[in-house]
């Protein structure tokens, strides 16, 4: 799901960078008040876990492969703001060290996976809380993968419309939404299922140790 450099037009990544800058400022504001000496080591550990998870490729049906995000567990345990900052750090390191996702695409990747993923996780968990922890947390994790996937697919699929040569040749990414939506979403339905299982396990572990604040 990490969009590489060169796939997005400046008309896309420049406004996204402005939007992300505002979102990062919002997320960082008051972070110290929400984090203390107890929560920082836990946040560090789960950020490291999310970083590692993003680099473990799991084979999927159809010959492709995917990886978990880990943003849902960050959001459910530390809130949207902390999760967004932490996951942006994960994306930055994955981009700089492994080339997984581009620097110019970082704002879009961070907004999609870090902000929308975290917000979706918290919102869905609250919405489905009456159905019990397992269902609510599992669904939250599933949506935290599938919704960012849909956004990434839409952003990619819009590129031929946003930036094309006078003869209509796409300048940055050649596939339209009709291609990108199923191509991104179908694998992420399975990835979301794996993310749900993983997040429920982490959630139970954290809850047993009274980590959960959300």
């Amino acid at each position, binding site marked *: 799901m990490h969009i590489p450099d*060169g796939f997005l037009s400046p008309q896309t990544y420049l406004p996204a960078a402005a939007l992300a800058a505002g979102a990062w400022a919002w997320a960082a504001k008051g972070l110290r008040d929400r984090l203390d000496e107890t929560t920082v*080591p836990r946040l560090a550990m789960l950020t*490291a876990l999310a970083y*590692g998870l993003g680099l473990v*490729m799991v084979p999927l049906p159809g010959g492709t492969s995917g990886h978990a995000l880990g943003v849902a567990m960050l959001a459910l345990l530390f809130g949207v703001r902390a999760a967004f900052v932490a996951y942006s750090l994960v994306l930055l390191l994955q981009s700089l060290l*492994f080339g997984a996702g581009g620097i110019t695409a970082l704002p879009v990747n961070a907004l999609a996976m870090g902000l929308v993923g975290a917000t979706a996780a918290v919102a869905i968990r609250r919405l489905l809380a009456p159905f019990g922890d397992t269902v609510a947390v599992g669904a939250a994790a599933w949506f935290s993968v599938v919704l960012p996937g849909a956004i990434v697919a839409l952003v990619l699929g819009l590129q031929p419309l946003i930036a094309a040569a006078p003869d209509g040749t796409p300048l940055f990414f050649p596939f339209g939404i009709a291609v990108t939506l199923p191509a*991104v979403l179908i*694998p992420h339905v399975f990835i979301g299922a794996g993310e749900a299982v993983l997040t429920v396990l982490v959630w139970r572990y954290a809850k047993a140790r009274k980590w959960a604040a959300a």
Partner: protein
Amino acid sequence: MKTIALLLALWAGQAAAHEVHHAVETTTAVAVRLTYADGEPFAYEAFEATPEGGERPAQVGRTDAQGRAVFVPGNAIRWRIKAFSADGHGVDVRIEVPTVAAPTTAAAPPPDTPNRASLLVFGLGLILGGFGLYQLRLRKTP
């Protein structure tokens, strides 16, 4: 009858214009191998090869089963290779290739890059170290 013959002659002429001829050439091509991080070939995916300064790709196509993007570089040395799958994976890299006159078998050795495990540990160190510093800062400033 003459009219029919004339129409047939015209039709045959037009039909000939739609033929595609072929010729076998022996030339020098460059193969850029693309793989996912786990070594899986980036197979059957779209790619573009554009010479430096070129406005349009000199070659567009698909990688083969082993993830190779093959193109004929001619005299251009620096190329931009862009490969993409529909789900947003891919690369956008700039490479240098030997000129046609140069011996093409002597490929340049890959750059000495740190291995994946080292980078993973380095990244983990940055995360844990960064949060550790933040923790220290929290303690110092009540």
